[in-house]
């Protein structure tokens, strides 16, 4: 259990040390994030891929209110914990070509956020989950609002109020469950064991679902997202899209499905329809985007829509697909935003039509960018393929028409992504891109790491599937069993 506490609180210690590190904050935070990654890998190696919860910690916290510091890791948690601790060092390294003012605060906030995210991904106590949920939001708000771009104050206020509105209703749902819990605590197992009738489950479903839907975001709760992604500093965008939206997906899997299966049974179809509308809608808007960063933001909505549809389809393939795709999407989207950041740092624009011909002057960037784009459009052999294939299979098992429409995401995605790539990288160089310099130093390190991950996971996804399989299986059985007792 010490390992888990260390895993969660090492970033917090790192944040405090970094806050006082002054000019060397960049290095200090890098060291802490890499050590955290190492620790996560050690835990992953010691993790036995079965359905049990491991490295469990259960300490009394606010005993009078039934709140415990109860955390643990199962296969599903392990995956997102790995994702978090993998992406944070990548995100920090990707900032090496920037000089942010007040770097100590910047890097401290990133590590603080990591701590909140890890709490969310390991919490087995609903109150702790909520605390982590908010603790991750505050730092990202400050990151985006202090170091962001044009109109950042208004945009981030919208983002903040949107997300916190969702989470407050979730808190209401949590309190409701707590009050129905005969043992009067927030323990997840006790929540799983609750016997609520259909109507109650319906209400709880919406209280939780809106919070998660805003975070992911699912249509029509997505309106904060493109602006926020565009106005945020690149590292903020990466944190939001790479890790933070997984909080919503993880929340659905960990809390929504097992606690209110009847609610999901009644309303899951609405969720799937919204997800599919989101896929089509976001893809169509992505077509028309002139700014590459906004295009990626919309493509992200489309991808998340597919993940969400796969989860609510509620079968083994859909779930497993969602697992793999969470990891792949995290890696790919961070890669995409990094490439756009590199371009922006060189030519000060992300407008697609102003760019072109970069491949001629920067072949290494062009190659890595291509691999990332192919991963995003789910070419076989890349990590995106496994996830999307499984997801579509899951949705297909749910309904053919749903799968047919959801499948458009792959076609649409390929079209707008490749067209973006073509316009930005290929063609003739213009006056803006003629002086473009190729990637170097940490940029190389980050991009090659991402590309390696894309290919390795694409060719050999078995470790990931193996890691989560037992837990997913267990989850499905648990929920189906509960559904049968309710009916």
């Amino acid at each position: 259990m010490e390992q888990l506490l260390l895993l969660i609180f090492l970033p917090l210690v790192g944040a405090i040390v970094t806050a006082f590190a002054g000019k060397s904050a960049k290095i200090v935070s890098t060291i802490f994030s890499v050590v955290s990654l190492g620790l996560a890998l050690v835990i992953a190696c010691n993790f036995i891929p079965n359905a049990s919860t491991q490295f469990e910690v259960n300490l009394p916290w606010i005993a009078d209110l039934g709140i415990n510091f109860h955390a643990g890791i199962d296969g599903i948690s392990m995956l997102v914990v790995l994702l978090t601790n993998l992406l944070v060092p990548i995100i920090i390294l990707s900032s090496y070509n920037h000089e942010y003012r007040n770097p100590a605060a910047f890097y401290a906030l990133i590590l603080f956020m990591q701590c909140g995210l890890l709490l969310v991904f390991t919490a087995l106590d609903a109150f702790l989950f909520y605390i982590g949920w908010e603790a991750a939001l505050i730092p990202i708000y400050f990151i985006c609002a202090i170091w962001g771009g044009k109109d950042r104050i208004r945009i981030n206020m919208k983002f903040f109020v949107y997300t916190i509105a969702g989470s407050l209703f979730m808190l209401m749902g949590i309190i409701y469950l707590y009050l129905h819990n005969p043992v009067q605590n927030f323990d997840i197992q006790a929540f799983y064991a609750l016997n609520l009738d259909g109507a109650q489950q319906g209400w709880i479903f919406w209280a939780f679902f809106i919070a998660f839907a805003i975070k992911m975001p699912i249509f029509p709760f997505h309106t904060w997202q493109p602006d926020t992604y565009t106005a945020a500093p690149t590292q903020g965008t990466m944190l939001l899209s790479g890790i933070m939206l997984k909080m919503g997906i993880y929340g659905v899997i960990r809390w929504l499905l097992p606690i209110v299966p009847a609610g999901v049974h009644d309303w899951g179809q609405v969720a799937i329809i919204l997800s599919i509308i989101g896929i089509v809608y976001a893809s169509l808007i992505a077509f028309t985007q002139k700014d590459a960063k906004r295009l990626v933001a919309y493509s992200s909505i489309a991808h998340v829509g597919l993940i969400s549809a796969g989860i609510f389809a509620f079968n083994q393939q859909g779930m497993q697909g969602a697992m793999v795709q969470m990891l792949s999407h995290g890696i790919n989207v961070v890669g995409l935003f990094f490439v756009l950041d590199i371009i922006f740092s060189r030519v000060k624009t992300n407008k697609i039509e102003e760019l072109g011909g970069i491949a001629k002057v920067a072949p290494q960037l062009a190659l890595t960018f291509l691999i990332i784009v192919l991963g995003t459009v789910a070419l076989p052999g890349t990590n995106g393929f496994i996830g999307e294939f499984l997801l579509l299979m899951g949705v297909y098992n749910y309904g053919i028409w749903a799968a047919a429409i959801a499948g458009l995401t792959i076609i649409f995605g390929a079209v707008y992504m490749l067209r973006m790539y073509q316009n930005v990288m290929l063609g003739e160089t213009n006056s803006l891109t003629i002086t473009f310099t190729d990637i170097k130093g940490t940029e190389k390190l980050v991009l090659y790491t991402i590309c390696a991950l894309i290919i390795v996971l694409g060719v050999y996804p078995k470790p990931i599937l193996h890691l989560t399989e037992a837990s997913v299986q267990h989850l499905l059985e648990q929920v189906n069993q509960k559904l049968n007792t309710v009916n």
Partner: protein
Amino acid sequence: MNIIITISITAFIVLYAGLFKANKALLPLTVVGLLTALGFTFCAWNGNAVHFGMMQTDNFALAFSGICIIGTLLIFLLTQNYFHAKSDNIAEYFTLILFALAGMIMMVSYKNMAMLFVGLEIMSVSLYILAGIRKKDFASNEASLKYFLMGAFSTGFLLFGITLIYGATGSFDLDKIQAYLVNSQTISPIFYPGVILMMIGLSFKVGAAPFHFWTPDVYEGAPSLITTFMSTVVKTAGFAAFLRLFAGALAPLHDFWVAPLMVIVCLTLFIGNVTALFQRNFKRMLAYSSISHAGYLLFSLIVLTKNSENNVLVYAAAYTFASIIAFAVLILVKQKMGSDSFESFNGLAKRNPLIALCLTVAMLSLAGIPLTAGFIGKYLMFLNVMTEYKTLLVAFAILNALVGFYYYFRVIVAMWFKDGAETELSAPVQYKVVLLVSVAITLILGIYPAIILNLI
């Protein structure tokens, strides 16, 4: 008893010290006096002594006395150079604040409604003078007059209510009133208007809508430090008095008075939050936000549980310490910039990162963000009313809390994201001590509230 005696004696000593122009000795004397009183509070813990049938120092009374004394102590530490600039007779301030505190101790520990009235008047009269203590300032005079008129009015309501209840029960004693409600077959018809009138009178005192009209003007017009005192310590004492009566003696009649209370709560939340949103002035915003907090505090009376009293304690503590930070920073900013609009906070984070950080924590706490005391307070209030599944009320409160984020974050936005004048604030040591102590309490209560949850 010892607590009131100590505070009163300190008040007299300070007054005489003022006569002999021993201005430097005032603060040390007061601090020693208050620490002694605090010591007596700890000694009396779990004693549950009844004093002459008039006051009862149960843990409820002691816990609220403790908060009031600590709050006053912190405010006194902020007086450094504050009153000196405004008046020669600074002993007046010290004495009056101490007398007000003595009145509040009676308000939180009364067992007999006569004591409630006496305590309330001792406090109010001191405050009328304090609000108008800048004799030549127009706003201060206006504040004082408004406060006095409204206060006299509300005292009238309260007194009338007490009379009617006395008429029905033949007693001022809380226990006897409760026994009357529990035992008698029929309750006298004049009892009910008595309850309503007392509720109106106390709502005036705590500034709950629709009896809140005096608060913004009085808070704005009074000297900032007095406003701090009024909106934190005084408010806490007012709620304790409210709670002692309604959650104690009048609890058997809960079904009757919960409906008007519900109206008051909803109006208070809505008016407080929505009007706070449109303020351009930080001090006025805090005044309106204090109205909305009164709304959340009243949640504890909507559903009476065994934790209601403790919930108010936690919320009041969270609110008091966060507000003290907010006002302390406001005073510093106003001294330097000459204005208390939001714009004068622009760029504060660059000039004084520590002060900005403290104020940020205070705003997060007032807004109710996790890991601060304010969140625990709000959480307990929501939990309290959710025990009877008043989900609509909670949903309404959540919508109001969202509005709250907007105006609390406006200060944060100004401090961190906007550029402003380059002049650095000069914070005296005492200010830093107060700020850091309050921030520490806010965070400790937010992260490990278990220490305060079972006090009462």
